[in-house]
């Protein structure tokens, strides 16, 4: 069995090298070597772009580190092979990756390579001395989105309606979506209107913009005035639908107001680049506490809502912006806090 794992790892190393998966020169033996495993493709994914930028910044700041980026591609079935091959090579002091799905994938690799250390961003993996994980408080993030959706729904920006209904389109259903984002979005909406309802739909993948447009059409037609879209490439379909219907879209994870000015009117963000930079630098200096899992939220400054954007000021009523600022302030002060614990 172990031989098979090594064989598969070797195959992946060869194929990824031939296909140009690696980006930077391999580090010299005396440098702290960091491998960044991207479960997908960097370009076009703000989350992974921030991940790579964070590691790059840390490496640039340190004289004693080198890095290499390996893209795992869109086939999730190959991610474990990719990580296994990186660990099997033994060339990395630290492997940095990001995705809520990665703990399950990393777990299988940890047993085979007990000396390999991992920094998992946007993931929750406590209690393993080989792993430091960082999770962003997506409950707070989704709550902010829901609160904003509620404020817009009760403002002069939309036609008055008796029942407040906001949409949420997910690429796939997964534990954090079902147990954290959806309930927190509803909670945020109901912080404005206790009778508010969320119309939750699933795209079934992360790329079909045509089907996303169809789903969004149906959501707007049945009363949603705004849709929070967390559907990867499918987000573009939601924008297309909203544009046709003069409706609104909410963005998640990265500042997205410029994606479609006047259509995307609200956006939360996570400071994945800064969080990655700080933890990678700590790892290079030997100061990162492996075995620990952190949760970073609004009060820490790693999760927020985009306010300092002219498009936000131009397309959102002042009353809504002021109410939103008050909520953000309360969360920063710790007056409003939502627990992110999962297990």
């Amino acid at each position, binding site marked *: 069995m172990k031989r098979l794992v090594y064989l598969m790892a070797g195959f992946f190393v060869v194929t990824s090298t031939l296909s140009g998966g690696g980006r930077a020169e391999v580090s010299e033996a005396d440098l702290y070597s960091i491998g960044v495993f991207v479960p997908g*493709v960097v*370009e*076009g*994914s703000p989350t992974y772009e921030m991940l790579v930028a964070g590691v790059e910044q840390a490496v640039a700041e340190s004289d004693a580190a080198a890095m290499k980026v390996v893209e795992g591609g*869109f086939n999730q079935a190959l991610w474990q092979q990719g990580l296994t091959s990186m660990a099997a090579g033994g060339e990395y002091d630290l492997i940095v990756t990001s995705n809520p799905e990665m703990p399950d994938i990393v777990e299988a690799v940890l047993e085979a390579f007990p000396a390999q250390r991992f920094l998992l961003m946007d993931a929750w993996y406590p209690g393993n001395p080989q792993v430091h994980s960082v999770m962003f408080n997506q409950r707070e993030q989704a709550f902010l989105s829901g609160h904003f959706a509620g404020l817009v729904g009760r403002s002069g920006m939309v036609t008055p309606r008796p029942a407040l209904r906001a949409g949420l389109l997910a690429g*796939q*259903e997964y534990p954090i979506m079902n147990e954290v984002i959806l309930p927190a979005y509803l909670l945020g909406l109901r912080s404005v209107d206790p009778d508010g309802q969320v*119309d*939750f*739909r*699933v*795209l*079934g*993948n992360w*790329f*079909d*913009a*045509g*089907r996303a*447009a*169809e*789903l969004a*059409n*149906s*959501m707007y037609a*049945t009363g949603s005035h705004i849709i929070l879209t967390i559907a990867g*490439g499918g987000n*573009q*379909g939601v*924008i*297309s639908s909203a*544009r*046709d219907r003069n409706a609104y879209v909410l963005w998640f994870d990265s500042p997205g107001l410029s994606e479609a000015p006047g259509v995307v009117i609200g956006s939360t963000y996570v400071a994945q680049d800064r969080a990655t930079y700080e933890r990678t630098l700590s790892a290079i200096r030997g100061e990162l506490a492996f075995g620990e899992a952190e949760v970073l939220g609004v009060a820490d400054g790693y999760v927020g809502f985009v306010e300092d954007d002219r498009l936000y000021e131009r397309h959102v009523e002042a009353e809504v912006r002021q109410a939103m600022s008050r909520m953000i302030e309360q969360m920063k002060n710790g007056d409003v806090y939502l627990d992110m614990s999962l297990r």
Partner: protein
Amino acid sequence: MIVNSLELMVPILIAALGGLLTERAGVLNIGLEGLILVGAFAAIVGANLTGSLLMGAVFGTLAGLALSALYSVACIELRSNIFVAGLATNLLAAGIVPTVSALLYGTRGVVRLAVPVSAQRIAGVSVMVPLAVILAAALHVFLFETPYGIRLRATGGNPQALVARALSPDRYRRFAMLCSGLFAGGAGAAVALRLGVYLPNISAGRGWIALVVIFLGMRHPLGILAGAFVFAVFESFAAAAQGFTEVPGTLLLGLPYLITLAAMVVYSALGRHARIER
């Protein structure tokens, strides 16, 4: 829901009609998925370069034509296996589009349309819907009422008959293959220009669905029209049903494919029954 279904039907119908020509000519185009992808990208590039949506559509169809010409050379001139060449066409499209995108726009990801999207509508539906229906009717007339169409069908059914009349079956195969490229490129253009954006994987399996619809529609243009519409209705229903049923969304999304599978089983059973009777 009917309007949505009609608009969802358009790209699948156009691509399947092109595929039908190749199937009838005996060289089924397996590369529809890749041709749609290339057409979608070229449509956005063309529209951005010229500032015209119409020119975008022209670029999309021509890109499909160019790639299908390559496929045609492989299959017809070089006698490659059509399945292998078709898969190679899909892989080529998946590789070439991000490369060209990176060269032109500096990204392998999303490319937006710089021209305002202005969907021309007739009686509330996109102008593409009547155009696609007219295309199906025209193809029916072409295949069953014109000498060229009859010879094209003979190419797939009985090529020896053409050879006996000193006609070249390859000429008809080539024509069918190039037309399927035009059609699939047009289907890609319809998808991208409707959304106002190109993004990786924008074809999202429509080329494969179009191939299934060819057989679902009994290899007949009007049957394909019906097959594509039925598929689009279930696709549209699956999207709408998520809003009013407690059935998990992921389960509902499989409904169109389940129906298609069931229809294919019925089609196969009917075909088998007909063969036994003969």
